[in-house]
């Protein structure tokens, strides 16, 4: 059991990060914190891919370095995914700024009360 956890520690960390991200997204009443939670959730998945590319004693996939190389493909995928993540964060924060301009609060429960009287 312990062996399983240690030999796959990055995967365990992935799952825990997904759990923490989910928790922050659901439990936080503040909208900015929800967006932070979304970021943690996504980085959890990045870890999953990058860990899968790793080989013990390997070098980065630069061909001037000695073999063995880690797999380049997951790195490429995650570079794209990181970009997607920052794009989503920017748009989400734009929405947060607008919600604040409209309602004067970023607290989920206060927001519901304000909107209830709309």
């Amino acid at each position, binding site marked *: 059991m312990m062996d399983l956890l240690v030999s796959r520690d990055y995967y365990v960390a992935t799952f825990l990060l997904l759990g923490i991200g989910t928790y922050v997204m659901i439990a936080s009443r503040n909208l900015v914190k929800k967006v932070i939670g979304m970021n943690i959730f996504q980085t959890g998945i990045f870890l999953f891919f990058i860990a899968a590319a790793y080989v013990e004693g390997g070098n980065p996939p*630069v061909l001037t370095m000695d073999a063995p190389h880690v797999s380049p493909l997951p790195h490429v995928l995650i570079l794209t995914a990181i970009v997607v993540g920052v794009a989503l964060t920017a748009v989400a924060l734009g929405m947060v700024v607008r919600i604040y*301009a409209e309602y004067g609060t970023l607290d989920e429960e206060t927001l519901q009360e304000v909107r209830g009287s709309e």
Partner: protein
Amino acid sequence: MSESSPETIGEVRNYVESPIIMATVRIVSPFVFTFGLFIMFHGADSPGGGFQGGVIVATVMLMLGIAFGIDPLREWVGESALVAILSVGVAAFLAIGVGTVALGGGFLEYHVIETELGIYHATKYGIEAVELFIGVIVASTITGLFFAIDAGKNDGDSE
């Protein structure tokens, strides 16, 4: 078209003028800018690339914004210029793809540039061009994101 004015009504000013920060930024930014360009072009043979380089270039803009205030910086850059730079960056990337089709190859098939136009190492140049365009797209977008979020929501009075 919107017009930005430094005295936007009801906006909180966070900017505090500091000679030390201004001097530091003045000295540091050319170096960081060069480093950004270096990273942008250096992706072919070692870690780095357009995206990372573009972010670093955008950081220069951010430092300037912190040191000299975002509103003067925005006027210096020109908000329309960012729109133009961003669009041209994406269009140039598309143009490579469409260009290789026009030369009789497939979409983004750099190889045909070599066979059709006789430019050696066309694939490598194609990749470097793509990295440069990504850098341009990223740097202009991120600068624009800073400007837009800093300006906040338009109240419709600038139309």
